[in-house]
């Protein structure tokens, strides 16, 4: 700390600007320039968000189906294979709280929306709604025009790079340095997304079954009670807006399925039954143990690759087209 006895005080505002303000401004000029350049560069990287945002802006009037969920849904539903005009607005670690905020932001902008698809996978009701992904709020604001900040926004809220420098630096390096650009279709679905644990293990069943996996087995009845009540509110909202609801859970592989906590699974199923009793028109597509999915349809235990996504999306399309 500076010596309090030493007199370095300045009384004139001009002198403050000259002796302190100016050096600070000069110091920060390169920082601001670099941050601006990074922001522009990040904005030019094609991502699921930017492509889905473009699709939303162009097709809003004709969208009939909106799909919400986490990375499991992002990897499992290729909206281009659904015969109705569909928006897949899922993203990694996106839980029901974000789904609901997005739905509320979309519902008035999609005059032809008839069906919403929600995810209720194995652990969904006992995993707390996450708030740590709030760096996505600028992404949603910038690309979807949806305010999930719980407050009035400022132009600064749309800046992507500063919302999560670490994440977006990685994106920048991936795009501009390593040139590892994913290929997307116009619905934001990643077409070459085969990389994953299963490919790394050459789809060797023995190795896959012995490979450790990351799965939530934490039982939490408090979380279940909260999440189930929250989800019921979502169903009520859809009901009030005349929207049909489909609940899906995509296929998961044997190594994942056998490690699921049976209590969590039972409670999930009984909660779904209770919700169906309250809203009997809601339809289900639970494909977790569907034997038609082969090891080569997966990226890892709980994420499909594009081959698996094609199969699952066709199942979903078939359900959407039945009355």
């Amino acid at each position, binding site marked *: 700390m500076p010596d309090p006895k030493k007199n370095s*005080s300045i*009384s004139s505002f001009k002198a403050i600007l000259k002796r302190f303000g100016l050096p600070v401004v000069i110091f920060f000029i390169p920082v601001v320039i670099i941050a601006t350049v990074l922001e522009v560069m990040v904005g030019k990287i094609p991502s699921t968000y930017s492509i889905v945002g473009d699709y939303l802006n162009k097709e809003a009037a004709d969208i009939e189906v909106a799909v919400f969920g986490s990375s499991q849904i992002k990897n499992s539903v290729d909206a281009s294979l659904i015969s109705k005009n569909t928006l897949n607005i899922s993203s990694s670690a996106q839980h029901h709280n974000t789904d609901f905020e997005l739905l509320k932001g979309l519902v008035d902008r999609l005059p032809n929306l008839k069906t919403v698809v929600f995810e209720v996978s194995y652990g969904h009701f006992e995993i707390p709604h996450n708030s740590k992904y709030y*760096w996505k709020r600028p992404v949603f604001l910038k690309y979807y025009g949806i305010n999930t900040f719980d407050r009035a926004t400022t132009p*600064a809220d749309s800046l992507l790079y500063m919302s999560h420098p670490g994440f977006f630096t990685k994106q920048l390096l991936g795009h501009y340095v390593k040139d590892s650009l994913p290929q997307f279709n116009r619905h934001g679905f990643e077409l070459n997304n085969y990389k994953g644990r299963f490919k790394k293990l050459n789809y060797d069943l023995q190795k896959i079954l012995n490979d450790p996996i990351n799965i939530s087995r934490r039982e939490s009845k408090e979380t279940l009670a909260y999440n189930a009540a929250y989800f019921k509110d979502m169903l009520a909202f859809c009901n009030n807006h005349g929207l049909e609801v489909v609940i899906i859970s995509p296929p998961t592989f044997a190594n994942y399925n056998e490690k699921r906590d049976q209590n969590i699974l039972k409670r999930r199923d009984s909660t779904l039954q209770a919700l169906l009793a309250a809203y009997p028109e809601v339809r289900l597509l639970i494909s977790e143990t569907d034997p038609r999915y082969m090891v080569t349809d997966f990226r890892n235990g709980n994420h499909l690759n594009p081959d698996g996504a094609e199969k699952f999306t066709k199942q979903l399309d078939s359900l959407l087209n039945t009355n």
Partner: protein
Amino acid sequence: MLFNSLSFGLFLPIAFLVYWAIGRQNIRQQNLVLLLASYIFYGLWDWRFLSLIFASSIVDYYVGILLPKAQTKERKNSILALSVVWNLGVLFLFKYYNFFIAGFSELFALNAEDYVFSSLRIILPVGLSFYTFQTLSYSIDVYRERIKPSTNILNFLCFVSFFPQLVAGPIERARNLLPQFDKERKFDLDLAKDGLRQILWGLFKKVVVADNAAVVVNTIYASPEDHGSLSLLYASVLFFFQIYCDFAGYSDIAIGTARLFGFRLSKNFNIPYLSRSVAEFWQRWHITLTKWFTDYVYGPLAKNSKNYLVRTGALFISMGLIGLWHGANWTFIVFGLFQALTISIERIPVTIKGKVVNINYYLTKMPLGLTVIYSFTLIMTSCIFFRSENLDMAFYIIGRILEGVPSEPFSLEIGWRVLFIPLLILMEYFTRNQDHPFVKIDSKTGRVARWAMYYLFIFFIFRYAGPKEEFIYFQF
């Protein structure tokens, strides 16, 4: 508004320029600008709770005015009681009501719907625990005649709502902060430059160290049953550094920001991981809170007693309350009581060759490395309670660490970024007698080297920032 957000990056220079441009004419203008800035800062989070800060300020301001006028001891006590009831009442309502109702219902096996007092759906106003303690200490100090009451309501409103330390401390005493609002501030170039450096250091601690450590902790603590002993131990060690860097980083930014406006706030952390004992840890960790409880809880209970049992009883009550201050959860209470237990053991008096000593005495004689391992192990164990969602989880993690469950595969989770922790320790250790590692950089390096160092740390902050996390202490 978070200190590590772009909004604050825009707010701070505007507040700074307006403050020194308009407010340099006289104290009143300076304080008006500060008050406005502070209310905007807080109101951007939730404007509705501005009324609560304002009400708390008014109550304690008038308590301060009325106390010296009271003719009798009883009258004085009842005026002080008004402040105590108001401050603790607000704290109880927003922070502890649901906790106690749930505990009461459980104790008497009542269903929530049967019970006349149902739980409330209310959010905890940011910074409530900090500013209520600040206003409460003001009233108590006036009551004890340690300070004279403020007679300037503007200055008092500024004292309660001063934005750098409003939401997460340091918890300032009126005798340190209030007089600074009474005298004119002149811009101090060295103080301001030092403030910027401390902000940079605080941002590094928060954004690079704490937020990266959070990745490890969140991943492993999300499913402790999937991780072996080494992984759980690793996550627990990193959690200590996460809360330290999160909170001390916030304090650094707060102190640095205050310096830009000509204020000097109290030091809140002093390299706590170098403590030789748990007792010493509390002299280095959240210093302003420890001093608060020492002055207003431990001191009056122990009353300078030399009796070990009296002092231990006071210690347990104080540490239990410190735990409860952190949040309405048994995990925090056990966190506090665990530390009380270890401190009370360290203090057990033993007579050897006619001389009364305790473990603390021997700890000061032992090599630093050994004593640091001793105290760190105990502190880290208590932090497991702090981080766990409930007591069952905490005991499960401790048990699993002790069982020696293999961690296969062990993963650092954040790769070489974990090396930012040793970098932090080295920088803080070699500058341990200073407020922060950049303090004397002016006298040791030229501008080019200095700026290169600043740019390097800004690069770290941009390039290696962890996923943005709320400041942990905001929830308290």
